[in-house]
């Protein structure tokens, strides 16, 4: 096993609050590594609703969710945070006072002075359709993601859904599959119009089938699917013969391994913190943003921004126990401005009258 990555802070979750934590920690000279299960930075904002508007960021009358993520990335650039995407934190173990060993499902290991949980609603995982008896097929002939396109060559592929994932994989797998069927519950699509047009062209050329309906049951043996039983909107059923099925119903958030790290959870899903510094019941582990709970908690991005500022003050005492923390403003502190890589405009020259 390779050496663990040594750092001041591990931040679990690269959503807006995790990103702004980098800023507040960075101003106080703490370096951070961020870990996120998604393949991109931005959490819910980037994954669930990148184009939706946000109107309640102080001083920003309007932005899109992705726009906010992009702005935050620009704002935290000076602090050189490192990102570990497509990784889920599996364990957080206390090995010092405080010092933590953090491990991900990809085998990455960290030794971190403090841990900040900014995991929002939990980790994103593909939605599993509630088709009775689907479990034995999962991972054998029913897949929620495409890892290797080649493994679908020559197969009869059934893709279910009407969003970008369903349409993108329809277009990408159509040349490889021996036969491809796209199944969706209606004739409108959420996917990019360009993808929809390309898909319709393939249907027009007789290269793929597009079918309206929803999967009600599966037939097969030993995890190998042979047919999907499809219910149409008028209630009748028919079969689609296939070797693999790829359902794309988006992602859902599950608390995941956090539930096993020994916190007394509120309502089984939120981590209680104190409102002085947003530390959990475990000294050195903080929880900020949507995943924490305290009396009066509001799940707002602006609340999370406030929380990370206070968190950083306490984090500093763990990372620099012997140093005195001097409170400073970015407006006037030349040392903070140096960290940000900015120089303020020179004072105005006196005007002669």
């Amino acid at each position: 096993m390779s050496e663990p990555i040594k750092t001041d802070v591990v931040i679990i979750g690269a959503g807006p609050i995790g990103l702004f934590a980098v800023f507040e920690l960075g101003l106080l000279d703490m370096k951070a590594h961020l870990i996120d299960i998604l393949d991109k930075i931005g959490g819910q904002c980037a994954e669930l609703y990148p184009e939706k508007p946000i109107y309640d960021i102080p001083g920003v009358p309007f932005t899109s969710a992705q726009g906010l993520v992009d702005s935050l990335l620009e704002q935290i650039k000076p602090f050189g945070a490192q990102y570990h995407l497509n990784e889920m934190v599996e364990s957080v173990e206390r090995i010092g006072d405080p010092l933590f060993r953090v491990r991900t499902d990809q085998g990455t290991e960290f030794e971190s002075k403090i841990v900040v949980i900014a995991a929002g609603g939990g980790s994103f995982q593909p939605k599993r359709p509630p088709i009775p008896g689907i479990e034995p097929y999962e991972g054998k002939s029913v897949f929620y993601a495409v890892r290797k396109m080649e493994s679908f060559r020559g197969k009869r592929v059934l893709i279910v859904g009407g969003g970008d994932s369903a349409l993108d994989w329809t277009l990408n797998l159509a040349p490889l599959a021996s036969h491809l069927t796209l199944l969706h519950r209606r004739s409108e699509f959420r996917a990019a119009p360009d993808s929809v047009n390309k898909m319709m062209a393939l249907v027009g050329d007789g290269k793929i089938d597009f079918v309206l309906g929803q999967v009600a049951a599966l037939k097969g043996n030993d995890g190998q699917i042979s047919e999907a039983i499809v219910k149409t909107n008028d209630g009748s059923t028919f079969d689609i013969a296939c070797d693999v099925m790829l359902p794309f119903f988006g992602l859902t958030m599950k608390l995941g391994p956090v539930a096993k790290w020994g916190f007394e959870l509120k309502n089984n899903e939120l981590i209680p913190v104190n409102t002085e510094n947003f530390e959990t019941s475990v000294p050195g582990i903080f929880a900020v943003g949507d995943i924490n709970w305290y009396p009066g908690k509001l799940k707002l991005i602006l609340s999370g921004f406030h929380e990370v500022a206070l968190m950083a003050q306490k984090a500093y005492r763990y990372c620099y126990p012997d140093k005195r923390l001097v409170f400073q403003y970015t407006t006037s502190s030349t040392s903070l401005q140096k960290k940000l890589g900015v120089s303020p405009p020179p004072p105005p020259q006196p005007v002669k009258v």
Partner: protein
Amino acid sequence: MVKITYIDNEGTARTVEGEVGATVMETAIKHGVPGIEAECGGACACSTCHVYIEEEWREKVGEPSPMEEDMLDFAFEVKPSSRLSCQIKVRQDLDGLTVRTPERQA
């Protein structure tokens, strides 16, 4: 106050009082009614507050918007009576509204 009844997948009915202006989703969460998850908190950005509107209420409740229809693609066993409960505001004339929750939200 407006009475709203949620019938779960097993047929258990729970009637709670909703405030005018709140959503049918918020009313369920506030009263701890099971069967509605509302992961995104009401932003019409997921589909985990999916409900079926009882036939006699469908006209009064109305049809989903195109944005809501898009989100319903992520739901399971979508029927013509499917709605996302975060997009239904409690109104005085919905007193007695009955909705059914699906077997699973996610």
